[in-house]
């Protein structure tokens, strides 16, 4: 382990900005993707409920 302290860890030998931007943006992208999928799924379900209530059940035939 080469980090003397927490602040040293965050400084990343002077490259903190670059390293942490990379990692944080990557993490954000992934989290955002998961959240977006979650929302999309919820929306799709709601729409389906509405359709079922609307009674357009032609696919059963």
């Amino acid at each position, binding site marked *: *382990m*080469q*980090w003397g302290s927490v602040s040293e*860890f965050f400084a*990343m*030998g*002077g*490259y903190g900005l*670059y*390293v942490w*931007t*990379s*990692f944080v*943006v*990557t993490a954000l*992208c*992934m989290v955002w*993707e*998961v959240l977006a*999928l979650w929302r*999309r*799924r919820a929306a*799709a*379900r709601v*729409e*389906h*409920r509405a*359709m*079922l209530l609307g009674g*357009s*059940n*032609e*696919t*059963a035939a």
Partner: protein
Amino acid sequence: MSVNWSKYSAPMAFYPLAGRLIPWFACVAVALMGVGLYMGFFVAPTDFQQGEAYRIIFVHVPAAWMSMFLYVVMAVWAGIGLGLNARLSFMMAQAIAPTGAMFTFLALLTGAMWGKPTWGAWWVWDARLTSELILLFQYAGVMLLRTSIDDMRRADRSSAVFALVGVVNVPIIYFSVQWWNTLHQGASVSMSTGSKMAATMLTAMLLMTLAFWLYSVAVILSRVRCIIVERESLPVWEEEPPVIQKVAEVR
């Protein structure tokens, strides 16, 4: 054989299967990512040339690899879809594109983040970089072509044709470094030291790659489930599994 195939390729038969698989992939992905990050930040040593900046490698290389790999996978699904006229394949291709594009974007961004400290520029017009940018355009092309076409069937098939044609570019992207003088250092940066330290770096990088791969599978599977719900006008399933069976049989 055709009977079997069509049975397993039916989206609603696949739906619950995908639902069961997602948690596994997601959990393992998170676990591996944790281990990989730990190794990357606490076990792997400082690079004697680049200092700590090199640690970007643990997201940059996995993202770059996934970006190319996912394109090929997408093209394969597209090809299967065109050949066998299987709806599920088109849906898979559709589900892969956004994630692939995201990784391409990440590879570009992390590369730029790495480039500033090492090369002194956010961006250079180098073969590897430019071709990665072009890969982003290919993803964008596939997705925009799809959204530009209203008819679902045509959207599927047209974007599949384009994805297939575009796959010609992937090897070209890969080998362009050799045809063109380049700044991007390839393997020389990380592993040439050849010592024990390089080995831990390599392990961390591979762990992260595996984690990204599992993450992609999980995300893509759940996106495909959304797509199935949106596109197949079927009742909602998983709450009452028997219904699925019935519908599948009727079909």
